[in-house]
């Protein structure tokens, strides 16, 4: 069963169009959403969670229309937005107290468990956390309200290799029981190699491919053997001789 289905998502901006993007995230999968900067990854994810209004298309979460049943979807997903710090001067304790009130299935015991597991100090302010710890805090919030799907916009961007490795290992642990799924955007191919079971590849606002990692390798086998080789080969643009003047 697919936990998330995106069908024909289209958003037109004056200088960019997200063009009929369709893909699905099966239950228990880690889908890496890849593409270079400006390809449309964040616009797609924002459209999925309702931050951006698509011109066409629809999003189905657990077979329910997300726009018609927004609350149901939001109660059952966790979101880690890219590059946005919420309430930077507030302590984690204060943010958690507020957040827990919005989720009927909030579990305090689980939250305490994940705080210990991630070594999160609730007395710290958001701006005292490292980038990796901020992601872990938002993951702790998501797991504490029993999110079925975690949507993350470039969660590993800007992290050192050790923190990235820790996070990708954490992703695998999160989906290990098959009840939760992860959709995360990235342009770091080594993260995909480590944890992704599925890949959706977007270029210039259009989805080139979505499916399992094996299907992706087969579909682009003439571009290279590793994911990095494939993506660089597909994305790379040759400069004209007269490009530098």
């Amino acid at each position, binding site marked *: 069963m697919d936990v998330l289905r995106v069908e024909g998502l289209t958003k037109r901006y004056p200088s960019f169009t997200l063009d009929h993007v369709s893909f699905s995230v099966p239950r228990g999968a880690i889908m890496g959403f890849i593409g270079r900067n400006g390809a449309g990854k964040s616009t797609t994810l924002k459209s999925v969670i309702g*931050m*951006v209004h698509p011109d066409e298309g629809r999003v189905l979460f657990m077979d329910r229309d997300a726009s018609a049943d*927004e609350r149901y979807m939001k109660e059952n997903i966790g979101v880690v937005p890219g590059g946005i710090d919420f309430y930077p001067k507030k302590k984690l304790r204060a943010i958690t107290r507020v957040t827990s009130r919005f989720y009927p299935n909030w579990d305090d015991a689980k939250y305490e468990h994940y705080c210990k597991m991630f070594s999160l100090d609730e007395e710290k302010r958001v701006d005292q956390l490292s980038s990796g710890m901020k992601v872990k805090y938002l993951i702790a919030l998501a797991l504490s309200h029993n999110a079925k799907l975690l949507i993350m916009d470039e969660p590993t961007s800007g992290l050192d290799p050790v923190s990235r490795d820790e996070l990708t290992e954490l992703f695998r642990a999160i989906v290990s029981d098959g009840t939760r799924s992860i959709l995360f955007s990235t342009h770091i191919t080594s993260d995909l190699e480590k944890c992704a079971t599925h890949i959706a590849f977007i270029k210039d606002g259009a989805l080139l491919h979505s499916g399992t990692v094996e299907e992706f390798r087969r579909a682009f086998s003439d571009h290279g053997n590793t994911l990095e080789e494939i993506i660089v080969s597909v994305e790379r643009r040759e400069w004209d001789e007269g490009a530098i003047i």
Partner: protein
Amino acid sequence: MKALLYKQFRLVCHPMTVVFCFFGVMLLIPSYPYTVSFFYVTLGLFFTFTNQREQRDLYYMAILPVRKRDAVKGAVLFAGLIELASLVLSIPFAILSSRINPIGGNAVGLDANAALFAAGLLIYAVFNGVFLPALYQSGYKVGTAYLKAIIPTTLVIAVCESSAHIPALLWLNDTTAAGNIRQLPLLFGALILYIAVLALAYRTAAKRYEKVDL
């Protein structure tokens, strides 16, 4: 709705917004334009809504299980609670002011009586009616929204304070019990207008914010 208001007070409210709620103490100043205390409350709301933007509150709201119109409702109710609290907290100072200042003794404008509170509600109504829909057109242009709102609000303040100098309206300065009773219809009329404008401001702001892409 309780969760939204709790969030607003715990994470978004600027400390000065609460401090300005107590500016009813200005009613004790002899011969002073008392409606200025209401202006400070609008300034406090400006601080909180600026804080809301700086804290990326609207983005956080967008990932919580809350409809966009409910995020607006929380903010509108917060503004209403702050404004009404400022009026309620001004009552003891108004009573004290009428005891220590001679009747009609405010040489500048309105005296501390029921008419002043009616003026307060009218001032807040004008402020809300412009500020909230203007703010939620973008969700982040707080300064522009405040500038748009404060111009008509200042005009209403000027009109209210000036009215106390018109001979036919001198009864608006009466701080006696009988004078206050005569002013009560004004107060109730202003309260109804205030509630109606707040509801309309919410509807317009929510409708506009639904169309905003974050």
